[in-house]
């Protein structure tokens, strides 16, 4: 009897499984992508829908950054009420989970299953490089991906015809920006503000394209001006124990410890433990300020730490920050929330231009606009358009944005008691380099 009952239960489970499998078989066109706007907003009369994908690490170690992408993208789209012409914009949130393979699968699914026609944003370079294959395969233009490193550029240039669908980067290669650190430090040494015993540096970083590209880029630039790189340590993105590494740096007596991590727990643990073991070197922690709550995580251990992030300077930017915080309860960081807001708005501008030119939104027309207008520098996005972080986003030399004072630039700053103090470039510097 008992056996019979179990048989029944098990058969029921199997049947349920089969039915669930078949249930999916009937496509549900009216289905809303999760997290999108409420279904009521849609205008049923028009019924023209353009589906875009927003790629980001919505779960996983960089989920906090993903959260900022999501909020700022929503804010940008809400401003146009999810409509461009007679098109309703539908958003599919593509979760990269900070993993190239998962991102690839998710992106491909978003294209074939949800009908994504164009994409925007992205965080890691490793994800970019992997996903470029998908965008190339399905000929879906992707805009303003944040994966910054050379590998993305190299892949883009290896076959612009094919990989051009990864149309633009929201972040230039690290080397273009790290030069700011080198200039700031060299300037301080020349001015006698900082007198390191020896010009030795230890490089650290998360073991991703970003971490390695940043580390090697900076190492090369430092070596050029006479620094000696005595150690290199790259660690898994989820690493939180750095005592051995830091003690080894300490024992080597390096003057400078420079590197990056995009994962807040990791970089904050690094800073805290550096303070704990009494590391006396000056620390460059690129990315510490990328989350709004950096001071909650590190406390005063972050004093004197050098970082390079843009700020919310203009009134529009401050307005954005306030609105952002109200919406999500998170403090936006200029480099993820702010930049992605600008990126999304630029993307909307591209879509609007496409619609004006062709009267039709499709992956082909959007890509045509990118080729005709964005890559030629005809279509840019400037502070006058509403850009809040940079003066002007210009992709006339794709895929990187044009870097420079009037375009895209990151100032160098130091943290002190929870505040950011700009130290470079001189035009905005509030203080000299501070040495403990």
């Amino acid at each position, binding site marked *: 009897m008992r*056996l019979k009952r*179990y*048989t029944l*239960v*098990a*058969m029921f*489970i*199997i049947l349920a*499984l*089969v039915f*669930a*499998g*078949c*249930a*999916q*078989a*009937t*496509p549900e066109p009216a*289905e809303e*992508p*999760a*997290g999108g706007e409420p279904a009521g907003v849609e205008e049923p009369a028009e019924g023209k829908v353009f589906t875009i994908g927003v790629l980001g690490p919505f*779960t996983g170690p960089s989920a906090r950054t993903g959260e900022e992408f999501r909020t700022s993208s929503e804010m940008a789209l809400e401003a146009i009420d999810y409509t461009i012409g007679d098109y309703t914009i539908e958003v599919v*949130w593509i*979760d990269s989970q900070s*993993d*190239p*393979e*998962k991102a*690839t*699968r998710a992106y*491909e*699914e978003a294209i*074939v*299953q949800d009908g994504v026609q164009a994409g925007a944003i992205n965080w890691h*370079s*490793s994800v970019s*490089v*992997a996903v470029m*294959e998908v965008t190339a*395969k*399905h000929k879906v233009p992707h805009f303003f991906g944040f994966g910054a490193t050379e*590998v993305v550029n190299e892949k883009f240039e290896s076959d612009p015809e094919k990989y051009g669908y990864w149309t633009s980067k929201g972040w230039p290669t690290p080397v273009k920006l790290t030069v700011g650190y080198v200039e700031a430090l060299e300037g301080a040494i020349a001015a006698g503000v900082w007198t390191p015993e020896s010009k030795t540096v230890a490089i650290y970083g998360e*073991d*991703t*394209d970003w971490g*390695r590209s940043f580390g090697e880029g900076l190492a090369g630039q430092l070596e050029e001006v006479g620094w000696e790189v005595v150690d290199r340590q790259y660690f*898994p*993105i989820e690493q939180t124990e750095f005592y051995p590494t830091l003690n080894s740096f300490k024992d080597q007596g390096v003057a400078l410890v420079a590197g990056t991590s995009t994962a807040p727990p990791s970089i904050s643990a690094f800073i805290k433990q550096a303070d704990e073991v009494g590391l006396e070197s000056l620390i460059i922690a690129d990315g510490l300020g990328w989350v709004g709550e950096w001071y909650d995580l590190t406390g005063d251990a972050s004093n004197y730490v050098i970082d390079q992030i843009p700020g919310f300077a203009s009134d529009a930017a401050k307005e954005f920050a306030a609105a952002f915080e109200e919406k999500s309860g998170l403090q936006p960081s200029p480099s993820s929330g702010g930049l992605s807001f600008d990126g999304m708005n630029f993307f909307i501008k591209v879509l609007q231009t496409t619609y004006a030119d062709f009267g039709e939104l499709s992956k082909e027309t959007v890509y045509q606009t990118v080729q005709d207008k964005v890559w030629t520098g005809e279509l840019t996005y400037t502070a006058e358009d509403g850009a809040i972080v940079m003066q002007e986003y210009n992709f006339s030399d794709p895929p990187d944005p044009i870097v420079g004072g009037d375009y895209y630039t990151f100032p160098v700053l130091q943290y002190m008691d929870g505040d950011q103090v700009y130290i470079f470039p001189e035009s905005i510097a509030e203080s000299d380099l501070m040495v403990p």
Partner: protein
Amino acid sequence: MTQNSSVKYTYEEQEPIERIKRLAKKFGISPVGLLSLVILLILPFIPPFNQEHLLRWLVGAALIAAQTIAFDFTTGYINVVNFGFAAFLGVGGYTSALLAVNFGISPWIGIFLGVIPSAVLGFLTGILTLRLRGIFAALMSWFVGLALLGLTRNLTELTRGPLGLNAPTFLETASNRPYFYIIVAMMMVTYLTLRWITNAHYGLAFRAIGQNIDAARASGINPTYYRVFNFTLQCAFAGWLGGFYAHYYGILTPALMATSHTVEVLAISYVGGRGSIWGGAFTAFPFVFLIEFLRSNLTELPGLHLILYGLLLILVMIFYPGGVAQVYDTIRDRITNRSPQNQSAAAD
């Protein structure tokens, strides 16, 4: 003369059928299984399964199905859980991908070359776990898996570590249908080979070792040979399937080799029924569809599908250790045994 020829006629009539039956039995082909295969093969043309995203799920399901076949070959027979299974998958995948990237070797050849390191490592692991029993062998294979994962992550010069290794795909097509037939063919090769082996005297030896290694040894079975053979073969197939993974998804990261991937295969294989070879494969299709359905529809609740995984595994383990395979056997036995009984009952 006529009599003679008619006798000859029936003899000829019977022989091929018997032979086919015998052959079918040898390779574990049953009418139901054949029917399932036929359904599976025409599925990509039947709406709604002809849509690309459902085809993707079908490919994913078939890949898991093939893996559970290889997994059960060891777990269900010699009773050793290879907890580092995913790592061997990764070894095969990485090998094939690296050969393609660095030497331009076609994926079609690469996936077979990928079998070699997987099999060698499987052979070594088989030897390593030989002295250990039950859970200790599982732990050992787990550690081997972890070590391989760690190496893959750290040998960045070779594997690009967490940056992910791009592998060329088999075909330059956006369609998933050809891939489906490739993986179903691979699945069938896996099934037929392993079934053929377990239906031969090897199967008996495996089971004997799995149940009581000392008793098996006492009755003249050499456990060393059979265990190592089994392990090597399992890992070889894992490596082969890993090659498909690499050239289908086009990107490999060390995450593929993580324990969670093994757990996935293990769960489906156990729900399918240990020691059946086909149980896990059969279960994989509805299971993967359910999981994917939940995952893509419940993005508000990420991970709910995995909870279901765990729950089902626990429920099956506690309440119905035989899994799906046992359900099938029970039903089949009912049908074959009951029908005459029912007739007599009706007569009463």
